[in-house]
């Protein structure tokens, strides 16, 4: 077992560092408190969404509805939570519970998650359109304050990313229940044989995904100050890419919360790096794809090293 294969976290860290160095070289102004915050603050909701997606991937499922869900949360936050906080909180709580219920249903009926979440993406999107047929709403003040706070030493975006990674790491990697949840992804049958109620574990994993999805939507509104029904649709694919970039795998319960957060930061940074390159507008979209491929190609080194062991 090679060093690199054992420490999957190194790859995301190296990718982010290299990209950051290149960005600083292209745009020295980014190398400041102010610059780092601008580069990374929109990565905070993406990081939260990536953790949410990771919870689902951890139990061998995939969530195609996450982007629509985060959009719905953003719409609720910018309208109901802002106008009548108590009702808003209640609705957000209900959304988390419905995610947990989804997990239980998927397990009980043995239907593929990809199907159910695909259906749910229509449902969440439709509900968001009900709440906010056209863009608008406003961020609750406390949320805006929270997302624009200026902590000493490091900007909010960096501090928040570290906190998210830490909390998720403690929850999933260190805690006992997190270990069991990863076990469900590794071998659900043996977890069941040991006497765990797998249906409840699945509900818990989905519930956690719902929780982080809600946090993502709220953080997003805190940054953008308002919402619309399509605001976070891209998060579905971004979050999947973030999990994989962070060293996670689609099956087998192999995930890394720290890696996922770094993956989300890398994706955000990659887009910025490209705009600093000032490509012709024909190729700007394609270049995003090229960077994504380039960053992931680094995995090859790890794979080959790993395969030898």
């Amino acid at each position, binding site marked *: 077992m090679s060093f690199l294969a054992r420490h999957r976290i190194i790859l995301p860290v190296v990718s982010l560092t290299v990209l950051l160095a290149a960005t600083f070289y292209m745009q020295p102004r980014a190398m400041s408190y102010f610059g780092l915050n601008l580069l990374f603050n929109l990565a905070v909701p993406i990081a939260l969404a990536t953790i949410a997606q990771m919870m689902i991937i951890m139990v061998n499922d995939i969530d195609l509805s996450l982007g629509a869900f985060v959009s719905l949360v953003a719409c609720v936050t910018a309208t109901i939570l802002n106008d009548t906080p108590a009702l808003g909180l209640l609705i957000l709580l209900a959304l988390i519970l419905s995610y947990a219920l989804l997990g239980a249903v998927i397990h009980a009926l043995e239907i593929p998650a990809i199907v159910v979440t695909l259906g749910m993406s229509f449902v969440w999107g439709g509900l968001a359109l009900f709440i906010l047929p056209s863009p608008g709403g406003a961020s609750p003040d406390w949320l805006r304050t929270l997302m624009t706070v200026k902590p000493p030493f490091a900007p909010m975006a960096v501090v928040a990313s570290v906190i998210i990674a830490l909390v998720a790491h403690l929850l999933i990697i260190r805690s*006992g229940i997190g270990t*069991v949840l990863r076990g469900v*992804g590794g*071998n659900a049958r*043996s977890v069941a*044989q040991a*006497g765990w109620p797998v249906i409840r574990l699945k509900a818990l994993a989905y519930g956690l995904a719902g929780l982080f999805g809600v946090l993502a939507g709220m953080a997003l509104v805190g940054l953008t100050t308002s919402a619309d029904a399509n605001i976070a649709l891209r998060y579905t694919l971004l979050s999947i890419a973030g999990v994989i970039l962070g060293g996670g795998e689609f099956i087998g*319960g192999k995930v890394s919360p720290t890696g996922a957060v770094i993956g989300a930061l890398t994706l955000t940074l990659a887009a910025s790096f490209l705009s600093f390159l000032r490509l012709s507008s024909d190729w700007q979209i394609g270049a995003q794809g090229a960077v994504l491929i380039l960053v992931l190609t680094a995995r090859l080194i790890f794979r080959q090293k790993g395969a030898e062991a």
Partner: protein
Amino acid sequence: MTDHESAPIVSLDNAAKHFGPVKALDGVSLVVTPGDCIGLVGHNGAGKSTLVNLINGALAPSSGSVGFSGGTSANEAGVRSVFQELSLCPNLTVAENLRISHTALKGPGWRRHARAEILQSLDTIFPGHGIDPMSEVDTLSIAERQMVEIAIGFAPRGMAARLVILDEPTSSLDAGIADQLLEHIKQFCAKGGAVVFISHMMGEVFEVASRIVVLKDGRIVAERDAADFTRQGLVDAMGHVTAEAADTAGTRQEFGPEVVRTEQGLTARKGEIVGLSGLAGHGQAAALARLYLSRSSAFRPGTSPEVVFVAGDRPRDGVLPLWSILRNISISVLGQGARHGLVDRDAEARIADQWKTRIGIRTDDVTNPILSLSGGNQQKVLFARALASPAPVVIMDDPMRGVDVGTKQDVYAMIRAEAARGRTFLWYSTETEEVCQCDRVFVFRDHEISAELTGADITEEKILEASFVLEEAS
């Protein structure tokens, strides 16, 4: 029934389990009391694993009852199972896997406790095991995984284990480690623990069992003290017409030209049966996998394949779980009978039926799902898959895992007959007894060949010597 101070840990009363028309267990009554060491034997598909699953609660009996004295469930009663198909979480560390089984392990500091507990258990059963409790299970060899699973079975986990059921625990362990396990079982039973030990290796069963229970077609056909059985008597009770032990190798010496030569120095000639031996996990399986992959293409569909593979690690390397028995057998021969790229379905059915009878797959219909077969019968399907193919070189990665005695003799004979017809076999086995049937043996140590034995040199002592020599010297 039993004396008063040792109430039965578990008692089955006329318990039966039916899968549709299949009577996997057909009314079994069995009582396990503290200190019992029961050897459970029977042909492939006799119902042994089903019995285990009834006891540990994974399956509910179709009729009859399963009762525990120390609680309402197996878990509460201190009943532990080590399953035939490996059932660890490969993505977790060894210690974390203990956490999965030890549902009560909670609170801060659990990692330290888990680590200590599994290490303690491993040290007790397998002294000198060399397994790091912080390493992830998928980085371990199959033998190491088996050891971890056994260690978890015997670990205290909050309350001492009272009954440990071991379903073919030695099938992927080499002789030395298997001996350590047998030693531990004896001590465990001597201290008042109970064990149900399932194995197709009669030697092991006689060594540990105080009582032997013979299952045949879902019924108990014999239950006596081990001392009351003879080896032949036991095999007879299992109901197998043992093929008369064909006269072993050593007589045939004419082999064809060399057909295999690897960088490592592994060679084989046409018509030869070449054994790979040594301690488990010393690179034999990897050497075979490399050989197979280098001789077959992932891109070119060979009309006449050079090599075929018989897997021992069924879920990982062998079984296509969603398919029927028929499709699992025919996958390696599809290319041959095909016309215009379409499968010849009649020929396919013919081949499957033919192999069902030839190798004795216990099922009434080859269109049944493969997972409805017992472990040993699934293994037979993999044999059929390989032998049905015309490939001249057959690579076998510990293929007798969980195959019953009678079938083993049949397969040995079949292998010898095929070899006589000019096929070459490369055969890795954890059982020295099997390796000794080969024409030539390569012993592996630390991923290298440490000895090449032929003819009369192929003995258990020589193999052990070559497996260990460096460790003793250093």
